[in-house]
């Protein structure tokens, strides 16, 4: 069958039922998004932004539209993914909010902090929703963000004020059914001086194909600090498309630590924009993939004002016939003087069929800046393997330990011990297990 026809049918199926009912909120935004989604075509490898990532396998999938009623798993079933040290939790099952599995503070219980569903925030008329939703993640040229926005009925809403220091919110998205598409949506508004942490976590109870199409918007106010951790551990057949759009005001701080174990195809767009002077960004990424997975990270750091700092480390461990893509764009606009930006991309290929495409993309239009970038692709360092062998480890064990360490170096930066432990166990499974534990 004709590729265009397949992709058109895919898009029609994806949008069928998305049209907003007038009684719902955000009708204008959603109608506009639907209009854009219909006007845009699905990306192919002919698009520069998708050169290395062919979504054809996704277009062939017969996805079911988001469902209103889903059978909720019992608390026992998801217990493995609960982080005991993070008491605030919102759980979505196949895209539907589950009040019984969630632990949300009652309104007003924490001064300065609102954690609720987007639906509830809209119903209560919270002005921050209208002020921010859809403002950061543009639907104009991003088809998948447009589709997500067209379906926008619910999601996570976090608004932190100055008094709400240090709270962490765990957003857990559980896939329980094959062929379902879910459109997760998160809006975090950190007001001036606020501090808040977000953990965005995707898991699956089944091994079939499904599709996650997420949009996360984070508005970081002046002097505010937001730490954002994303863990993507979908099934091996899953498709995961995500756009994270962040705006950071004067002297604000935003960190993004994203760990992906792939899925069939995953695409993580991270767009961070400086909206004031003196901001600081930290980006850490790990793609740890095997089999037929393709994991694509496209980051875009936009230094639009002076005195911005950004540090980025993206690592890929690619085994089997897997394929990692990293496109790290850093834009230093005219006037963004004294920008201090570093980007490092390090990839290890563990098999002959493993493949990495890496593309650092620095665009600098200011003359008084420090920008450094580096990319390495290769095997483990012979000197490191030798060192461990002189301590009695076999070559295989040495390689496993080094591979584990290479990946754990990123995972260990997650500030939640139970999640580090669970991810470290997963890294171990692929690096010799008890042999190096």
């Amino acid at each position, binding site marked *: 069958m004709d590729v265009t026809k397949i992709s058109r049918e895919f898009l029609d199926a994806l949008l069928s039922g998305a049209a907003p009912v007038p009684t719902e909120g955000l009708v204008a935004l959603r109608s506009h998004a639907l209009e854009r989604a219909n006007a845009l075509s699905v990306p192919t490898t002919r698009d520069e932004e998708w050169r290395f990532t062919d979504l054809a396998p996704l277009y062939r999938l017969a996805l079911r539209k988001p469902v209103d009623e889903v059978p909720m798993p019992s608390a026992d079933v998801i217990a493995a993914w609960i982080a005991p040290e993070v008491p605030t939790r919102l759980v979505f099952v196949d895209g539907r909010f589950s009040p019984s599995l969630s632990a949300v503070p009652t309104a007003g219980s924490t001064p300065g902090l609102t954690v609720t569903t987007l639906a509830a925030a809209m119903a209560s008329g919270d002005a921050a929703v209208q002020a921010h939703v859809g403002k950061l993640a543009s639907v104009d040229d991003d088809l998948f963000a447009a589709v997500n926005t067209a379906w926008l009925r619910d999601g996570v809403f976090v608004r932190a004020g100055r008094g709400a220091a240090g709270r962490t919110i765990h957003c857990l998205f559980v896939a329980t059914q094959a062929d379902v598409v879910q459109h997760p949506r998160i809006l975090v508004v950190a007001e001036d001086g606020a501090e808040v942490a977000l953990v965005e976590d995707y898991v699956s109870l089944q091994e079939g194909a499904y599709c996650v199409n997420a949009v996360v918007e984070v508005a970081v106010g002046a002097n505010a600090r937001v730490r954002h951790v994303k863990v993507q551990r979908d099934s091996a057949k899953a498709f995961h498309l995500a756009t994270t759009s962040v705006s950071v005001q004067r002297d604000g701080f935003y960190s993004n630590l994203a760990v992906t174990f792939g899925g069939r195809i995953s695409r993580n767009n991270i767009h961070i924009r400086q909206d004031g002077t003196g901001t600081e960004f930290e980006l850490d990424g790990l793609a740890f993939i095997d089999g037929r997975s393709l994991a694509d990270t496209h980051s875009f750091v936009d230094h639009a004002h002076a005195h911005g700092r950004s540090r980025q480390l993206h690592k890929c461990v690619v085994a089997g016939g897997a394929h990692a893509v990293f496109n790290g764009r850093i834009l230093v606009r005219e006037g963004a003087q004294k920008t201090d930006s570093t980007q490092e991309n390090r990839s290890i290929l563990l098999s002959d069929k493993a493949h990495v495409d890496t593309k650092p993309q620095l665009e600098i239009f200011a003359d008084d800046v420090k920008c450094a970038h580096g990319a390495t692709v290769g095997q483990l360092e012979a000197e490191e393997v030798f*060192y461990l*062998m002189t301590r*009695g*480890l076999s070559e295989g064990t040495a390689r496993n*330990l*080094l591979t584990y360490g290479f*990946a754990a170096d990123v995972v260990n930066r997650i500030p939640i011990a139970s999640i580090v432990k669970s991810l470290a166990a997963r890294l171990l499974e692929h690096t010799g297990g008890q042999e190096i534990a």
Partner: protein
Amino acid sequence: MSNGAGKILLDVRGLCASVAGVPILKGIDFTVRAGEVHAIMGPNGSGKSTFSKVLAGHPSYEVTGGTAVFDGVDLLELSAEERARSGFFLSFQYPVEVPGVANAQFLRLAYNTVLGGRGRDELDPLEFDDFVREKMKLLEMDPAFLDRSVNTGFSGGEKKRNEILQMALLEPKLAFLDETDSGLDIDALRIVAQGVNHLRSADNAVVLVTHYQRLLNYIVPDFVHVMDGGRLVKTGGRELALELEARGYDWIGKQAA
């Protein structure tokens, strides 16, 4: 002090080695008996570090001639890990950083592999923790170094202490310490030297590979060898080291020629 009666631990005859086709070692004869301390000195580029790495089994070096028998076994036939398990230890001049792997995990893995292979009980993390903390006292190391990634962000001195800690854990028969004194301040040098002296016995031996004689004030050698141009060109007692300190290396070359 050696009485020359110890069992021969290492016997190297006519050892030649090259890297990327370039000959570095050009016929080394070297014998170490149990209970002895040797120092190998020499100018930069003389082949000292290469000699250590060749004996440890570094894959980049090709042995092109000669023999090396370690405790009755052909050392050159063994892989690097087999050499370590059989009791050969190399303390690195530049210990490798392994981000993401906790030092405790690495040390325990090395201990269980090497000592477990010699019939010692393997230790679980808790047992090992007690065990390694005792050894760390010897080197006045902060136990916090157990939780940090292997050598990552360690100062030069901390890395060298961590090397000697590994020597303490692995109980080698023969330890080559490659430039262990470089990067150490005087207090760290004293502590590391005390650690090494503490580990010496009538059954093991130590070879100090060093550019300076400073370390030899703390670990007193029975024999001092001078390496130049890939050969051991002179051997003497500890007084040779003092002479080298005073006169440099140039006179040796002239004398040998």
